[in-house]
């Protein structure tokens, strides 16, 4: 089939037009997607002196960009767990009256080993290793 001039020009304009639209939208869409910033690799963090950390209390530690909850139980055992609730990402807290971990956003409850025992959380909290080196508490990623 011979390609007449009008058809040829329409095709050229059509493809050119689509190309033009793509050339406008591609950079805009790409701009909207946030760039991945390199996350510093953190393997361990120091979390203060053991002697200064009272029993039956907790604190939130920065582990790189992740919050980790460090708990000292009544019998002076140290536990470190991811502080991000597995339900919807709120930061959990230690309840020194019930000896449980609570997420106040949707009443999710974990036991002291991070197991999800009631409420909406679907998974347990990730566990971190805790060591005490010369009375300094050091948290490291398990595994």
């Amino acid at each position: 089939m011979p390609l007449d001039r009008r058809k040829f020009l329409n095709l050229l304009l059509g493809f050119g037009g689509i190309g033009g639209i793509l050339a406008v939208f591609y950079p805009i869409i790409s701009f909207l997607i946030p760039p991945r910033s390199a996350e510093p690799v953190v393997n361990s963090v120091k979390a203060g002196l053991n002697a200064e950390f009272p029993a039956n209390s907790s604190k939130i530690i920065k582990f790189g960009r992740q919050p980790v909850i460090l708990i000292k139980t009544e019998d002076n055992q140290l536990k470190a767990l991811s502080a991000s609730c597995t339900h919807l990402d709120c930061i959990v807290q230690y309840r020194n009256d019930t000896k449980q971990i609570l997420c106040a956003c949707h009443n999710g409850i974990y036991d002291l080993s991070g197991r999800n025992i009631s409420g909406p959380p679907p998974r347990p909290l990730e566990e971190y290793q805790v060591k005490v080196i010369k009375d300094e508490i050091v948290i490291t990623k398990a595994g």
Partner: protein
Amino acid sequence: MIKNIGSKLIYWIDERYDLTPVRNLLEHKKVPAHRHSVWYYMGGVTLFLFLVQLLTGILLLLYYRPGEESAYESVRFIVTEVKFGWLIRNVHSWSANLLVLFAFIHMFSVFFTKAYEKPRELTWITGFIILILTLAFGFSGYLLPWNELAYFATKVGTDIVGVVPIIGEPLKIFLRGGDEVTGATLSRFFGIHVAILPAIFSVLLGLHLLFIQRQGMHEPAHFKNLPEEKKKYISFFPDFALKDLLLWVVVFNILIFLALYFPWELGNKADAFASAPEGIKPEWYFMFMFQSLKLLPAHILFFEGELLGVLFFGIAGFVWMLVPYMKVKHRTNWKIQPLTIIGILIAAFIVIMTAIGYLL
């Protein structure tokens, strides 16, 4: 003297742009008068509150500084240092809440009077999208003071988006401007709140109002079936417009009363490394969804409870938007029609879940 100048001005414009269509609209538009007429005013009140938002929002913009290190401080500056800053912020917060409330009332009144039926399908659909945008306005604006409550509400809200299969995770990263809720999220929400949403909102609101002007007021069935001589109308201008104005003044006074006597707290500054405070709650208009998600078990069959919850609300919202196209058989022997029963159940669900959220 003023009247003279006024009529000269109108003549000047009329001579050049022909104001006949406007004159026709003002002279001929009429509003049915019947026992459900009160619902005609709800859209107008919503519009009025939107205008209040626009004005107070622009004012706040003059002092607000987005950013992790400046947002909270600038809002504190507005409410403590700027003259009447507290008033402007309180009015903006209260008006936002009333706006959502009246938008819901407006929507349900349109639903129950069946005003969405042919030929007003697009008025309903644009209205529904406007309501979703209003909620998005509320959600994005809530983060801007960068306080604890806002921080966790945003964490939860954006995480909920993330549970949707396939598109959820990229959408969450897009909204947060990264993996976590950070200053990048704040910048993004600020841009969304003050530029993107207003732009889309204005277009849809314009269409919504245009459709209403083109088609005139809806007449409910009980009114339409009356013999012509029994149908009562009032003129849109000036009768209805003045009544509208009176209601706007009443709502404005309620708004000022609330802003004066129930100031909006600023709370503590957001901290990415602090536990979520107890008793954390979303804005009341998200409460019914929040409460439903809270009541769902962690797993339902093979799915995570929250995923099913989120999908349910998404699909329910979409179906609700398409209500004008739903063909439900009219049952002559039923006192209340099936669709009305569904509407009542939905309204009851929202009210009960909200109440449970606050009482439990």
